[in-house]
């Protein structure tokens, strides 16, 4: 199909509809409000339910309910709103309920600002809710990639019976790009929801959706079962892109909008004969550790670039396993660096490596 020129938030909303989303519950917050606005207009055409909740807390619990009823459901918000949703996300993970959560990230902490940021990395990848759980989390860099991942996210969420989070910075929500919303994506084999509490209708045994296990050995057993599932995600869902992996001396590690700025910097540096490459995590949980295990022997150092004061760098350190020196460049509070700032950061690191 022909490409459409769309705003990020609206493209994400349409992607959800194309991905089979049949219910949306949310609460307005900048910079993602065009997403619920779009769905409030078009959800009905797709035979789904749109409801603006009284709060983010209510919204995620409505998602919990609709998911328990066996329906493909999503919510979207931005950083402070996602913080409020963490309780419900933990309950979803504990009750093994699918659901897609889009986080259009803005600067924090607190009320922070409304400009693009990646300062929710830890919230997204480590969970802000209680307990031993993870969300499958993706951080795409373009609208096409975002649209494709959202469509697949509904499948993945059903497949693993686990919430999936899409974490994009505010820039991706607000910018316009051409997208093909009908592009074929990877299909997964999803089994029937034989756990959904949609009323027995006298046809089956009753079901319970629950995350409470007062009996300690039972809760441990449940946590082990979840852990096994997370291990499976680690084996199957690590996603990343490598740019100039063959000859690079320095590999930048960046995702989302920051990765795009780094691509421009890499072009400039390569014109000057400076061999720089990029590791671009697409899944941020599970973190694509395997990308770091197969780096070319030419690589002498890693430069982590983030729209934060340094959060993903902890995962870079884990994935690096102490092999290479690691530097960091970041801008925070909604500030977006110029390409030259990345060029400078590479040059500075390179100077240090030569010594």
């Amino acid at each position, binding site marked *: 199909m022909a490409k459409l020129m769309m705003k990020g938030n609206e493209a994400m909303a349409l992607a959800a509809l194309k991905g089979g989303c049949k219910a949306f519950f949310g609460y307005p917050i900048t910079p993602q409000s065009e997403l619920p606005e779009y769905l409030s207009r078009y959800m009905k055409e797709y035979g789904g339910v749109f409801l603006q909740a009284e709060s983010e807390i*209510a919204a995620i619990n*409505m998602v919990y*309910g609709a998911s*328990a009823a066996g329906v493909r459901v999503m919510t979207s918000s931005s950083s402070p709103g996602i913080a409020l949703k963490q309780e419900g996300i933990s309950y979803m993970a504990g009750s093994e309920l699918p659901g897609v959560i889009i986080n259009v990230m803005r600067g924090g902490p607190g009320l922070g600002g409304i400009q693009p940021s990646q300062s929710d990395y830890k919230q997204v990848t480590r969970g802000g809710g209680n307990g031993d759980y993870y969300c499958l989390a993706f951080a795409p860099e373009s609208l096409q990639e975002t649209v494709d991942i959202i469509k697949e996210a509904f499948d993945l969420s059903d497949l693993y019976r686990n919430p999936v989070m899409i974490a994009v910075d505010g820039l991706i929500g607000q910018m316009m790009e051409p997208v093909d919303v009908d592009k074929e994506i990877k299909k997964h084999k999803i089994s029937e929801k034989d756990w959904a*509490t*949609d*009323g027995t209708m006298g046809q089956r045994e009753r079901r*319970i959706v629950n*995350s*409470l296990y007062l009996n300690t050995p039972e809760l441990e057993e449940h946590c082990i079962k979840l852990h096994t599932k997370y291990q499976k995600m680690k084996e199957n869902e690590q996603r990343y892109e490598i740019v100039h992996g063959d000859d690079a001396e320095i590999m930048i590690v960046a995702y989302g909008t920051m990765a795009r700025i780094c691509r421009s910097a890499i072009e400039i540096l390569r014109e000057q004969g400076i061999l720089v490459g990029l590791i671009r995590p697409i899944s941020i949980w599970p973190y694509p550790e395997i990308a770091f295990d197969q780096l070319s022997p030419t690589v002498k150092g890693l430069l982590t670039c983030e729209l934060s004061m340094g959060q993903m760098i902890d995962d870079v350190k884990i994935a690096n396993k102490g092999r290479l020196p690691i530097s960091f460049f970041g801008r925070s509070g909604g500030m977006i660096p110029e390409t030259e700032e990345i060029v400078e950061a590479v040059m500075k690191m390179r100077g240090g490596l030569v010594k």
Partner: protein
Amino acid sequence: MSKIVFERTKALTDNEFSYCAGCTHGIIHRLVAEVLEELNLIDQAIGISPVGCAVTNYNNFNCDMVQAAHGRGPAVATGIKRVIPNRIVFTYQGDGDLASIGTAEIVHAAHRGEKITVIFVNNAIYGMTGGQMAPTTLIGQKTSTSPFGRTIEQSGMPIRMSELLATIPGAAYIERVSVHNPAHVRKAKQAVKRAFQTQFDQKGFSLIEFISTCPVNWGMTPNKALKWAEENMIPYYPLGVFRDDTKEVKG
């Protein structure tokens, strides 16, 4: 030859109740279950368990059950009812769950006129966590976090949820009942029936508030607790129908 004169309702499982002796949760569970059976709603019912003493009542109601986070029952019920509107959805909530942490969810569910039924159990105390003050604790009542008795200066007046919710146009049926004696138990059952019928008829939001007891945390025998509820709670929480829009003819 003996004959069966009484049976457990089919809407309750064989699981034992986890409640303390003398607590009225058991009676209230049975009333809800009997109504589900009598209205032939068990197969299409989905219940929402709260956080509090009734937290594990998903083991007791013999229909699909979903356990909700503290106070969020009405939001969870909304999510279910909106995507499968031809089912019967009910929440079961205590006073901490509904009248404290979940005030936003209950007010807005009523406000939207969600076609759900809420069973609200008010025993003026947090039972599960060991007898702390509830938003419905009476003035002067001693609890583990109001050891000298609740005061207006410190905590305000006890909140009357039925009266508050009855001001909301989306609420179709609101009644407060008690189960301190057999006559009131029978009356309470009729109220529960009205509430579920309201939902079945798509009339809107329905809520039944039960005046309940907590012998253990009130420090009373079961009989004395029932008497205390009658003499102290009912004067402040009067029984009756606070809103009934079910008879309104539309158009």
